[in-house]
């Protein structure tokens, strides 16, 4: 092999390695931008589902780690529905774990009264010193949150993803792992039930 062949052999690889490094850096920046844009909304949705501040932060972090580890290579436009799918799964895991834990505690003699479900009022941010507008928004959402608890989990998911997060039907179907027809049905039913529950907003 001559020098020119050596040169032509080495240059593409060097260029390729540098290009790969730049691609990885760009990807990490894109991921950080995406996560920064979604974290507050994801926290709100998680807290509405779990009714606990620390648990909500935990599931958001878990979902972020899973997305970065497993799906960073997917097209960027898929990140949002994929992230919410992961978040939904984590929330379901937490809820299942809580049910099991309460069942064990209730069964274990002498401990039935020790563990109480988290108080949504206690876990809400301290309103002392908060502007009146902030408090009102919090109270409104708290009311919706209470009403959401009366829905099935699928109805609740469909409503939060479609209405709060603004995912379209196709994206919501990916996040929920169901058909688009199911998303529409769950969402329509959720809106009906919530309207009935929060009656004064109908006027």
């Amino acid at each position, binding site marked *: 092999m001559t020098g020119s*062949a050596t040169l*032509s*052999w080495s240059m*593409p*690889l060097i*260029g*390729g*390695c540098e*290009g*790969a490094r730049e*691609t*990885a850096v760009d*990807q*990490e920046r894109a*991921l*950080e931008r995406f*996560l*920064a844009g979604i*974290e*507050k*909304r994801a*926290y*709100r949705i998680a807290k509405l589902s779990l009714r606990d*501040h620390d648990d909500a*932060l935990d599931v*958001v*972090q878990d979902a*972020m*780690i899973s997305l*970065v*580890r*497993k*799906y*960073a*290579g*997917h097209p960027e436009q898929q990140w949002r529905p994929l992230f919410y799918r992961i978040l939904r799964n984590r929330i379901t895991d937490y809820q299942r774990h809580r049910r099991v834990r309460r069942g064990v505690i209730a069964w274990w003699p002498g401990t039935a009264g020790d563990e109480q479900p988290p108080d949504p009022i206690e876990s809400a*941010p*301290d309103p002392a010193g*908060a502007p009146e*507008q*902030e408090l009102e*928004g*919090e109270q*409104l*959402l708290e009311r*919706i949150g209470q009403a959401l608890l009366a829905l099935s989990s699928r109805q609740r998911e469909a409503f939060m993803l479609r*209405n*709060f997060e*603004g995912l379209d039907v196709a994206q919501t179907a990916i996040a929920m792992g169901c058909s688009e027809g199911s998303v529409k049905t769950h969402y329509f039913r959720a*809106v009906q039930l*919530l*309207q009935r529950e*929060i009656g004064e*907003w*109908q006027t």
Partner: protein
Amino acid sequence: MADMTDHRQDFERKSRQAFEESVAALDGETRSRLARVRQNALAEARRGFRPSLSTWVPIGAAAAATVLAIALWSGGPGPQATEPALAALEEFDIVMAGDDLDMMDEDPAFYAWAVEEITDGVG
């Protein structure tokens, strides 16, 4: 019927607005914790970071292109010399196939080995 639709849309708008206001009104401590959560997630991913498809494809493509360049430069004296180049192109096609994207994300070590095999085959 129109009234019901209006009520539904009004309800949807108000509930969305309440959610947006609650997001905007998140307290400073929660925002800070979320920022830390984000940084933890990115750091965790970096610790176990293996380059994803978007990193390996350029490497695989460069390796396959190199093999082809060498095979063509050498003048292709016979079937034996061109076979590795053709095999490398087939590997390249496999690497580029969209069907295997998920597998590539889950097993980049396999594709690193595959790239190595392509370049070693040129010998």
